[in-house]
């Protein structure tokens, strides 16, 4: 299992959707931190995403990071391989699942 803590590994202040929107965006997070594990066909490890300890999340960041991943690699594959920790705001997990399934 591979653990990614967004606040520590990426940013405490997540931004918006695209690189052109500004720093710490969802597109960059997805490309740098998530896609490498999906591009490797031999890798089926679970990715455990820790959402805690950031200042908060905009909808576009979450959608581009996780919804964007599902749009590229397929809903089932993403749901199978991503797990989330969100003790500070448990509603985020359901929200993210919504973006993945859309």
């Amino acid at each position, binding site marked *: 299992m591979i653990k990614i803590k967004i606040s520590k590994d990426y940013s*405490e202040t997540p931004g918006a959707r695209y690189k*052109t929107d500004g720093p710490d965006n969802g597109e960059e997070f997805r490309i740098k931190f998530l896609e490498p594990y999906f591009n490797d066909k031999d890798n089926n490890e679970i990715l455990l995403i820790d959402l805690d300890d950031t*200042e908060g999340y*905009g909808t*576009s960041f979450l*959608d581009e990071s996780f919804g964007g991943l599902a749009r590229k690699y397929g809903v089932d594959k993403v749901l199978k391989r991503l797990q989330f920790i969100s003790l500070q705001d448990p509603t985020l997990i359901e929200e993210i699942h919504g973006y993945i399934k859309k």
Partner: protein
Amino acid sequence: MKRKYTSSKYKRRSKILLKKRKHKQRKRKKLILIRKKKLLRIKNEYLRHKHSNIRTSQKGKQLSISAPEDFSIVNNINEMMDFFDEVYMHVIDGRKRILLDLSRIKTLTPDALLYLLSLLEYYTQELKFKKISGNYPSEPNILKIFEESGFTKYVLADASHRKRSENILSIESHDLVQGKTAKKVVDFTKNKLKTFTPSHSRSLYATLIECMANVKNHAYSDKKRIHPPKWWLIAHHDETENKIKFVFLDNGVGIPSTIHKKFDEVFKKTLGFNNDSQLILSVLDGDFRTRTKQEWRGKGLPKIFEYFQQKRIENLIIISNKGFIVANGRKTITFDRKFRGTLLSWDIV
């Protein structure tokens, strides 16, 4: 020696120069005519919807335009629009220097400061009109807010009118989404409101990111603009009511204009949307999801409205184009003027 004016080369050259000069003169006349028509259109629009008489006075080539005593968009929108339309009319006319006379202001809300800043930037950077200046309010309390808000940082003024205050997070501005600025606002709020929970803190951060992201992605669809749209943000701690008032403004095309670009008139009339206020309400409800035709987008404003419904933010007001929404009770205010951009104002108690 051949006399110059008889040589055929000289005759040919002067014919070409004359043709170019005449072309320039025709172009200049055309531009003057276009500007006159635009000015007439603006003047007629202004006179049709005018609610009050804005005091003006002229001294030589300088025209002084007096700001309303109640300098507030949220509380006095019609008189404020009269004032700004009067200014705009003279900016387009272009013949006189303009002095914004702020000396008579008796009450001031931060939204008016942000709107004034955004318009000044529009006049000087987009319309290239630089003959505009202003004075300071005479009332000491109002002058204090003016100085502490950081307004003077953005205009050409000496540093003597810049003061810092613990109760005001001075005006921030950018054209991109800035998480660090949002964090600054959240930290200011945490410092002032001891009952501010981590959950509310995350909601506030998310609200600010949504506002900034909306400017970047939806507000900029006017191809005539030279510069991308910006946002301005201010937070003010009201000690007597122990609440923080936030104002966020962008100078984009506005929410209703963005919707109009996507949906045609027949479709909108079918759904019963006859005015900008109704369009904004429907956007808050999650209809007309996004200009981009991508179903997974357009959740920003509905999210902000969700925070309001969960009482994480209070007294939400949205003004955009001709729409004016007071979220408490889903009230719409009749408003017949065009507000340039989108303004969101909310409180946290």
